[in-house]
């Protein structure tokens, strides 16, 4: 088991290393650096000003050296101003201008994640705060999605081919065929608009006080999550993710229902609900469990769309902002987090699979 974990962690590190290098390479091609200079120093600055800005901020070194700086294996760049004040990667990161006061290397190894150029704040702060916000979103998504998907899947798979099965299966398929950028918009139009959809009706009946039932913008959920400002983003992500899990559950359930021990139980005269709850359910849930864990990184996509659509500043929103503004160090940190999420969920899914299914041993 220990060897298994160590190997997994090793793979994780190598993956993160390769991935950050690719991200670093793609964000540091000359045209991207020019974009960065223009977003930082003024969109209409001249080419000479771009060159001077890049030079003054340490972007003119070979790419490998700068990747080394970020990792913390190469010395950070320095730049002496005319008035004697020293500037450089490590000076900025440790907040000093006095020559010699900053460490020589300041990268990941030394614990520095760098500064975000988009948000003008340490990357660790930005990522930390935003991950918290996305954590809340994901938590509620899972709370809504998992039970819904399991119930739909189990009900459909319990009696294969029945009318319930057909209806629920079609519903599950339709939900996977509705991308977030469609369902989110339709939800807003139906439930969070004072001119169309449900809200004007409810207002005219006097059922709600405000002009709209739900809020079509989740910014206020950052400070205070309520049902009314958080329901739409959660539903949007959950709906798209639900269909897939439900279908896996259904497939797994139909398979279990044809197993010998279930047949035996039925022949013995055990009641149908009892069979489902006592005998079939546990074995039918092994497959969905792995799928749910593997769904989490995949849901991240939907989270980006939904957070941008509902202007909810979470991790997905940060990823979008960082990518759109070529915020190099923030993107690097975000990809490290993404790799960790992918690999940790895989790990949990593997371990959980073993735990749920005693026939398999980790080797």
């Amino acid at each position, binding site marked *: 088991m220990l060897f298994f974990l160590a190997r997994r962690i090793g793979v994780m590190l190598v993956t993160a290393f390769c991935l950050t290098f690719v991200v670093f390479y793609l964000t540091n091609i000359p045209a991207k650096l020019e974009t960065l200079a223009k977003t930082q120093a003024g969109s209409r600055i001249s080419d000479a000003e771009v060159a001077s800005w890049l030079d003054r901020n340490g972007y003119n070194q070979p790419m490998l050296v700068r990747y080394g700086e970020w990792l913390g294996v190469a010395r950070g760049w320095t730049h002496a101003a005319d008035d004697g004040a020293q500037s450089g990667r490590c000076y900025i990161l440790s907040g000093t201008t006095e020559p010699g006061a900053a460490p020589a290397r300041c990268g990941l190894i030394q614990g520095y994640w760098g500064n975000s150029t988009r948000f003008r704040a340490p990357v660790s702060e930005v990522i930390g705060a935003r991950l918290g916000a996305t954590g809340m979103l994901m938590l509620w998504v899972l709370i809504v999605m998992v039970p819904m998907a399991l119930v739909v899947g189990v009900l459909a798979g319990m009696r294969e081919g029945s009318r319930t099965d057909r209806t629920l299966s079609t519903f599950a398929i339709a939900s996977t065929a509705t991308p977030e950028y469609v369902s989110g918009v339709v939800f807003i139009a139906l439930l969070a608009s004072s001119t169309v959809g449900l809200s004007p009706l409810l207002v005219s009946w006097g059922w709600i006080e405000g002009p709209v039932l739900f809020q079509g*913008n989740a*910014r206020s959920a950052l400070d205070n999550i309520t049902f009314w400002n958080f329901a739409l983003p959660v539903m949007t992500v959950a709906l798209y993710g639900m269909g897939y899990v439900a279908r896996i559950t259904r497939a797994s359930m139909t398979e279990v229902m044809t197993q010998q021990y279930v047949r035996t139980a039925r022949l013995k005269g055990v009641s149908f609900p009892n069979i489902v709850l006592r005998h079939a359910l546990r074995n039918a849930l092994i497959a969905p469990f792995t799928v749910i864990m593997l769904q989490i990184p995949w849901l991240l996509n939907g989270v980006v769309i939904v957070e941008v659509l509902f202007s909810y500043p979470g991790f997905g929103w940060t990823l979008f902002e960082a990518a759109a503004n070529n915020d190099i160090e923030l993107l690097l940190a975000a990809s490290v987090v993404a790799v960790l999420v992918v690999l940790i969920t895989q790990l949990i899914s593997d371990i959980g699979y073993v735990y749920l299914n005693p026939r398999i041993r980790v080797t």
Partner: protein
Amino acid sequence: MTKDSSNGLHQGVRGYARECKDGKLSRREFLTRATALGVAAPAAYGLLGLAAPQATAQTAQMGGSMRIQMAIKAQRDPRTWDWSELSNVCRGWLEYLVSYERDGTVQPVLLESWEANADATAYTLKIRPGVTWNNGDPFTASDVAHNIERWCDASVEGNSMAGRMSALSEDGKLRDGAVEVVDDLTVQLNLSRPDIAIIVNMTDYPAAVVHPSFTGDDPIAEPIGTGPYRPVSYDTGIGAVIERNPDHTWWNEGNGAYLDRVEFIDLGTDPAAWIAAAEGGEIDLTYQTTGDFIDIFEAIGMPSSQAITANTLAVRFNQESAPYDNVNVRRALQMAVNNALVLELGYNELGVVAENHHVCPIHPEYAELPAPTVDPARAAEMIAEAGLADHEFELISIDDTWQAASCDSVAAQIRGAGINIKRTILPGATFWNDWLNYPFSSTEWAHRPLGVQVLDLAYRSGVAWNESAFSDSEFDTLLDQASGITNADERRDVMKRLQEIMQEEGVAIIPFWRSIYRNLRPNILNAEMHPSFEIRYQHYALS
């Protein structure tokens, strides 16, 4: 406005007033010109026999808070600001020497008055007495001199004030003797050439006045300023919170600073998200609303406020890249496009049709020209004559809603004439990388009070922002001439020729002058749309 400046009135101003009364000059033009030369606004209105309009401050309530939708970008040194959003947050504590008003006047703020000499080469600035910084220091002439020196420093990347102050600088630095501190409250400016725009330039948003101790590029961290507010928090991309500063006595106490708290909320660039936020009661005011969204906001109970401006979209050709080096190609493409249709389809008819030159009817210098001809059939012929019948043109634009829509409309009309064209849309961050060099692309140009200002900035041979690579010695000579003419009729004659040259040379398709709008809740006072997108929340109030 204690001093009546009509005594030492600039000699040109009385002439302007006469022209205005004779109907040769619009009132707005008169006000812009007279105040730019140092006539106080009430006096300028007085010359026309009118009373200056009073702000509707009577019903304003003290207290309350307001939430404003606006992009919150990473802050930096004020003189390098390239977005008015950056300045709007800081307006509560960083004030300006002078301000540009909705009616076209230039009003004193930290200055009390100013006067120009006869040929506009020397200006005397009188500083408002009794102004203090919020750290207790008095605001003096040396602070003004310090700021002008900062503005003239062209070695700072992105310092756009340097160009505006070029009559005061030399070799990218303040020229020796250009600024004289006469006494504690008087500054004398000695210009190297006549420049009627220098005071107007000080109303621009990068001209925020900073404390002498300010260095670096974060005006939020140590918010020393003269205004009544101070920042509480500033989160790029998310929002900013401003509160009234209880430890500071504002020089204009009693005439503003009504609100206790102002919150800016960044909801991204998608207007649909702003609508959703407004419907949920999360914002009270928008920074700018465009197109169909104006009506939607009105429908949900947020009336709109309009400002008529010279903001426009220049769909320009770069004359250095083939095939746009051929004037017939440029003229043909212009001829294929009906500007009225671009205004209808690209900007909902919320503006005035323009005539493919960059002087707007609201500019003092504007000369009326016949409308440009629209003849798609002839356009196609001319393209064929140039041997480009099978050439695929490419029109590049930024991915902003109305700009992209206007360019789509331009392209659709060119295509309708039987000319091959494709569209390319670049994201905002990428677009500016090459904006000067795209062969055929569109650029948004902001409103400027005087017509010569944009011509000087964008169409003079070899200037930094000359994106059309337009170079015409006659144009340059006439432009110099125009900048030195004070008489309106004479100047208009020169302007007429300048405008004609732009049309004849097919410099750009300039389809319309757009009016700009914001939407706000009906109980908000003093928050009308400003032609330069200023949000002066120190004057906003709730009723």
